[in-house]
């Protein structure tokens, strides 16, 4: 059974004047790594939003673990427990420290001590153990991205979604972040869907989906 599945999904904006996705069908299996590529405006971000219920299809259906999900409350629960999202612009809360930004995403009733322990463990894994008490404005783009990755992984998600996770980073930092993401995702057996403009980055993934004008133009699997 696919982890997440889109069936004939169409997403329109402005009362149908803008069609972001025009009947996309796509299934992501557990443990799969997927690169979503395509030109600007091809519907990549909309697709990513639909995969985690941040947006809702105009028509068609989205299934998570075989169940059609329409309710936004159910989607919130799924995102809290099973989905980790790495946003292109990090989406960190500026007034909180790196550790607090991770803790704020922690699902369930977890003791304070355990919260702190788990968040520090992840910060250590992304090489930021010394920056736990720093706030995002005091950190570099690469550091912020690593905090965002740590946050996405805090609940040991089954699906990690990343919108250009290396887009704001230089080549060295980008590669480091990507290796880290692949490593963590691979070791936990989670699926990864990642938007990227770079072929070299896409090559890290086992599958590449190309979107053009809101439609899947190509869907290929690497060896």
């Amino acid at each position, binding site marked *: 059974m696919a982890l997440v599945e889109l069936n004939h999904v169409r997403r329109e904006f402005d009362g149908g004047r803008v069609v972001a996705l025009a009947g996309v069908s796509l299934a992501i299996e557990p443990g799969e790594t997927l690169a979503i590529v395509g030109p600007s405006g091809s519907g990549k971000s909309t697709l990513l*939003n639909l995969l985690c219920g*941040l*947006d809702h299809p105009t028509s068609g259906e989205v299934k998570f673990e075989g169940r059609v999900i329409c309710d936004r*409350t159910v989607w*919130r*629960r*799924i*995102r*809290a*427990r099973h*989905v980790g*999202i790495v*946003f292109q*612009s990090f*989406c*960190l*809360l500026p*007034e*909180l420290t790196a550790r*607090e930004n991770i*803790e*704020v*995403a*922690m*699902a369930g009733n977890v003791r*304070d001590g355990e*919260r702190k322990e788990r968040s520090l463990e992840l910060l250590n894994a992304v090489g930021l153990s010394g920056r736990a008490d720093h706030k995002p404005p005091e950190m570099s783009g690469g550091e912020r991205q690593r905090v965002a990755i740590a*946050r996405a992984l805090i609940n040991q998600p089954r699906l990690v979604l990343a919108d250009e996770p290396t887009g704001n980073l230089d080549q060295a930092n980008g590669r480091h972040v990507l290796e880290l993401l692949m490593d963590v995702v691979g070791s936990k057996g989670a699926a990864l869907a990642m938007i990227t403009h770079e072929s070299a980055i896409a090559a890290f993934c086992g599958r590449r989906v190309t979107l053009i004008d809101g439609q899947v133009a190509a869907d290929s699997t690497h060896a």
Partner: protein
Amino acid sequence: MRKFQLALHHIVGRPLRSALTVLGIAIACAGSLAVTGLIQGVQDSLEQGMEEPGVDFVVGERASFSLVGGSIPESLAPKLAAVSGVSDVSGVLFNVETVDNSANLVVSGWPRDSFLWKSLDLAAGQIPAPDDSHGVVLGQSIATALKKTVGDEIEIRFTKFKIAGIARFSSYLNQNIALIPLDVLQQFLSRRDSVTFFQIRLARPIDPERASQIRMNLAAAAGNYQVFDNGEFTSDIRLIRIIRAIADTIAAIMLGLALVLIATTLLMAVNERTYEIGVLAALGWSDFGILSLILLEGLLMTAVGAVLGLGLGMGIMQVASHTAVAAGYLRPYITLALVARTVSLTIAIGTLGALYPAWRATRLDPAEALRRQ
């Protein structure tokens, strides 16, 4: 990270706005406490003042407009005294007069043979002699405030009286009272054979069932007049009820303003933090989680405002009770029940004010909110 810490971050992160909101809530809470407390203080003083000489019942007019407004023939006294179980009956003539052409003073006239004179705890001097037509006994507080002692003269409504004694009282009303023999006050006020009410003491020991029976018999003897206990009598005075209604209205308006203030502040906060709320929703925070975060912010500010408001309210009562016009009538009055009522009302208002902004926050579309970065 706990929601409490996050809410605290938001409040501390906007110090000026949070401080002004807390101050607004504190003023509303203080105003509400002060107006309610001062009027309850007046009522409590009256009740304690009536009770102090060991009075069990009062016979007076129904729904009298003010404490000084009643007029009952003095001739009713023997009928009331004849009721079985009644130990003492005393007519009382009450009025408010200008003293030394500056302050206002409650003046009470007691019959020369009244048990009320016998209950006095004199700090100095004596009660007016039977032939003394210008003797007066002052409560200790008003004597101190007016810097008067035994033998001094005091001008009551432009007539000179001589201070015969100074009495100790525990009630605020009586500490600020001037006591004159009834016949002198009746002549002075041109109200011959008339009293404001009767104070009645029952024979001791008092059995509640027996007291209830005596009350019924007193009611029968009193005819058109009503028998009250001390609390009923003071709360039945129409002027007090009107002032209480005004005080309650002012308190409600103030708390209403606090509601608008907290709602405005939190609405602004929600609008400013659309992106942040979008992030929380994107991370999977439930509607309840987001709702309770905003509510918590409102509650924290309201709670701090309420605590500050209590202190401020007590300060306002102090200032009000020391103004020349209010001296002797108003006093700072605070009870646990009043504090609990004011704090719980303020917090309820704060929660109510935070509800709409909190609900608005849950309605944000996370994808749309994230685009606002």
